[in-house]
């Protein structure tokens, strides 16, 4: 019996149907229909608390494009100290709430940014830095940078400037917090609803669309 690994897995790893049924009875939620909240006023309060929590814990993906990423260390460290607003870094896209597009975006980087954005979990927000993301900026006639970011990804906040100083960056974050509190931020749903439009724009500039199958939804 000890030398049979399959049996070992069966007894510990995979529960039998009887065990599952027993567990469903044991661990079923105690508050069923009586405790469930459905009326609009309660929903409103719950949404308020959720938005309040979200706006004060913005996890920023540690990813920078272009030249504006150099403003992020200044924003995060002791002088401007963005962490007093609840803004801090996150290591991977799946842990992050905010994607910063810091400066010009070449088509080569756009391909990576799209993958990063689609890996992030809802609610997710995009902040775009500098005039390059707004209208191309000084790269308005460049052959390899996109000119208007919101054609390719839903953008919540644009920060003007070339580059925006940390004060502007923090002001942009405060604007994003306002939008989150009012329930106006978060382009994930917009992206999903208008996916065809976004995909058409993206595939117009990314000539060789060789994404893995998970991205072709």
């Amino acid at each position, binding site marked *: 019996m000890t030398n049979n690994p399959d049996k070992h897995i069966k007894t510990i790893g995979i529960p039998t149907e009887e065990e599952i049924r027993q567990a469903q009875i044991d661990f079923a939620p105690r508050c069923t229909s009586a405790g469930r909240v459905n009326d609009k006023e309660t929903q409103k309060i719950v949404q308020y608390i959720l938005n309040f929590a979200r706006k004060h814990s913005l996890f920023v993906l540690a990813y920078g494009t272009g030249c504006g990423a150099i403003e992020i260390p200044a924003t995060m460290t002791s002088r401007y100290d963005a962490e007093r607003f609840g803004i801090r870094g996150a290591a991977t896209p799946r842990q992050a709430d905010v994607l910063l597009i810091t400066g010009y975006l070449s088509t080569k980087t756009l391909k990576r940014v799209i993958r990063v954005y689609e890996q992030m979990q809802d609610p997710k927000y995009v902040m775009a830095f500098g005039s390059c993301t707004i209208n191309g900026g000084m790269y*308005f*006639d460049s*052959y*390899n*940078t996109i*000119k208007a970011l919101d054609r390719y990804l839903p953008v919540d906040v644009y920060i003007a400037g070339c580059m925006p100083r940390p004060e502007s960056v923090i002001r942009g974050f405060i604007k994003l917090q306002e939008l989150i509190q009012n329930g106006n931020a978060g382009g994930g749903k917009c992206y999903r609803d208008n996916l065809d439009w976004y995909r058409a724009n993206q595939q*117009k500039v990314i000539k060789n669309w060789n994404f893995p199958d998970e991205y072709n939804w």
Partner: protein
Amino acid sequence: MQENILNQLNKVFKIKGQVKSPLRIKVVADKDIVSSILLYLKAQMGFIHLNHISCVDWIEDNKFELVYIVWHPEQKQTVLVHTFIDRENPVMENIDTIWDQANTYEREMREMFGIEFPGLVGDREFILEDWQEMPPMRRDFDTKRYAQETYETRPGRENARNVRLEIMKRSGEELPDFAKKYSRD
């Protein structure tokens, strides 16, 4: 010291150089002997450091100009070796056997100007990705037209027009004279 360098190059390769500044010597050579000159400069004269290889597109003369910039760290001297190659069929000798770092410059020139270096090791795709047009640093590549055709621009901001003037027109705000001087339209 600069005369010595010029005399030595003249004696070996029969080429005439000129002194551009106290720290800089310019030499124009035929493309066949450029690699010999560079190897001689490195091995015999102590110019052991390759600063840069740059390429200039002389579309009017139908030529590419390549400039090899080498440096002598003890004498603090720079030698610029200029050479011209045909623009229609641009082929140049590969010198990454002399300096390894030349490989990077040559790959970039192959991608950006379409110059072929026979025997050059490395992926053809260097900085650009999925590029299907002509090499973009050639002067007959119309960058602006390509950008306008490929990318979506924000309406009203297709060119480098001054933003202040637009704001002034819309809001009726008066712009001071010194600001008008620097605005372009």
